[in-house]
């Protein structure tokens, strides 16, 4: 089962949102989360910054994604610690639904990074100097996940990503399917652990 469309390569305009510590409350305010599902969230993306007043859909022309050239940009340029705060995966679902497929930042908050990998957004960790240079060049970029390289015109920048994350993103793999292949190892662990730490395994609902 495929969990999301694979993203071996992303090409498109890179929208600059260079603030540090952009939190998931900013990416999607809680008031914009209206249903028990993973869809219908793109309209609430960056709602506090994107619209002139809460609850409206009146675009604030100053916000980067409201500039026509950045509308539905597949690449986002960001500052340190992007995606900090609440674990709400709605932040990633909203970004994905809006069209974002790669985020370039010097660092990501850990839960947000994990959520990206489970949903088909490449979290590219790269120097702030490179992020700034790409923002200044203001151009279409290619994020080549397989080659672990960003191409921005003539300049190329290599990036690191661990093998598991890379494979999941490049092939759109479902984590549960992958892990269930290790079912025998999990069963062996549980059998031994039940003897070593029986108090972990609650049996009856008291």
């Amino acid at each position, binding site marked *: 089962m495929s969990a999301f469309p694979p993203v071996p390569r992303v090409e498109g305009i890179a929208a600059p949102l260079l603030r*540090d510590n952009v*939190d998931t*409350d900013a990416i999607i305010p809680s008031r914009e989360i209206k249903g028990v599902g993973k869809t219908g969230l793109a309209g609430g993306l960056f709602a506090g910054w994107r619209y002139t007043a809460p609850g409206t859909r009146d675009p604030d022309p100053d916000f980067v994604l409201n500039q026509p050239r950045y509308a539905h940009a597949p690449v986002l340029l960001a500052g340190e610690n992007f995606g900090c705060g609440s674990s709400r995966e709605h932040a990633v679902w909203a970004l994905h639904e809006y069209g974002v497929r790669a985020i370039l930042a010097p660092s990501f908050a*850990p839960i947000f990074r994990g959520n990206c990998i*489970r949903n088909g957004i490449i979290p590219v960790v790269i120097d702030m100097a490179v992020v700034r240079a790409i923002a200044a060049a203001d151009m279409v970029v290619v994020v080549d996940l397989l080659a672990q390289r960003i191409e921005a015109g003539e300049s190329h920048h290599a990036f690191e990503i661990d093998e598991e994350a890379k*494979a999941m993103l490049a092939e759109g793999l479902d984590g549960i399917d*992958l892990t269930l292949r290790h079912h025998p190892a*999990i069963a062996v662990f549980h059998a031994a652990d039940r003897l070593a730490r029986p108090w972990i395994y609650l049996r009856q609902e008291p």
Partner: protein
Amino acid sequence: MSIEPRTLFAKLWDQHLVARLNGEDLIAIDRIFLHERTGSVALRSLAAADRRVLDPHRVFAVTDHIVDTKAGRTGTLVPGGDVFLTATREETRAAGIRLFDVDDRDQGIVHVISPELAIVLPGTTLVCPDSHTCSQGAFGALAWGIGSTEAEHAMATGTLRLPRPMATRVSFEGALPSGVTAKDMALTLIARYGAGGGQGHAIEFAGAAVRGLDLEGRLTLCNMATEFGAMSAFIAPDDLVFSYLEGRRYAPSGAAWRAALAVWAGLKSDEGAVFDREIRIDASVIAPMVSWGTSPQSTIGIDALVPRQPESGLDVQGFAQAIAYMGVEPGTRIDDLAIDAAFIGSCTNGRIADLRRAAALVKGRKVAPGVHALVVPGSSAVRRAAEAEGLDQLFRDAGFEWRMSGCSLCFYAGGEGFAPGSRVISSTNRNFEGRQGPGIRTHIASPETVAASAIAGRIADPRALVQ
């Protein structure tokens, strides 16, 4: 054969290691906790994919985030919020998962009730689709927040796959001055090293000032680890932890209790264990801390000035935006700022010891005219305990509202909120733009500082009231 000294982190991790994968480890998960806001979607999605919860007896759920906290509550005040409550009820029933619902006597904020019920135990791995799950590391567990999809993974497989973090030890040495709390310790760490300063690390809190904290203080300290960007945080469990847990609902008993105790006694870093990083902080010079900006790192001592330029690690644009959003003046004293509201509660500071300390400061005093002050107990058990001691009356007499338990105004979901434009002093963990409502200006601080500020009508140093 000599045995290499190991960190507590290595012990917790290796105990749960099921398999090594390609650059990640497969880690067994002992306990899963869900709340209605992010857990409902995980349960729905799992059911839609026709997947089974591997062991429902080790999964728990609660309604805490969007439940009404006014007396006589029946559900939620969030428009359209009912769907989250309904989905949580339906899906937990279908999956055979124990739900602590609005009317349950054990209802409360997930990270408050988990220790109360001994769902978290020393040496366990515990996950919840909520970033402040790390609070529960105060009991010597490896507890961390995940996304909803990861919660599905944990429920379906009993494991999570994740890269092994590095181990940091943060030691607070010396004694904490009076009127200064665990909250101020956490904010000092984050202000010094940045909101991303703990990234890639699991943190062991140690040192005399940490060992001297009560359990509530330890939970507060570990709670804020996610605001430091850490994967998790924990404290080696001691007799305080063991005697708290003994006899509680889901704790082992009899021979199993004694066997568990024998195992838990080894849950500490060995002498000479090597950490990837060590941070030392002198606790004796920490002051009450209060945030001026829109990140927990934008925090200063209560007698300090709002900075004139970005602290290292914060960009110029972000600094200007934070100053403008918060309506503060660079170079002015933070304790000159008049407040409109004061909030005591949350998974950070809504426990009985927090309420006792705040109540002691408000006793016989009055909330300043025009200030909307409220206390929201972290759990129904905390509320009952506080009422049995008469704390509710102390707060009410001073002019505070006294509420039912839940997350309440810690965050804004579209229902109840503070008056537009309010400046709020809050015992919560996040001062993000809009966290407590559009345009609301949040200053985070200890419950003592919140109490002192409510009385003064402006941000105020609690040490002036501490005898």
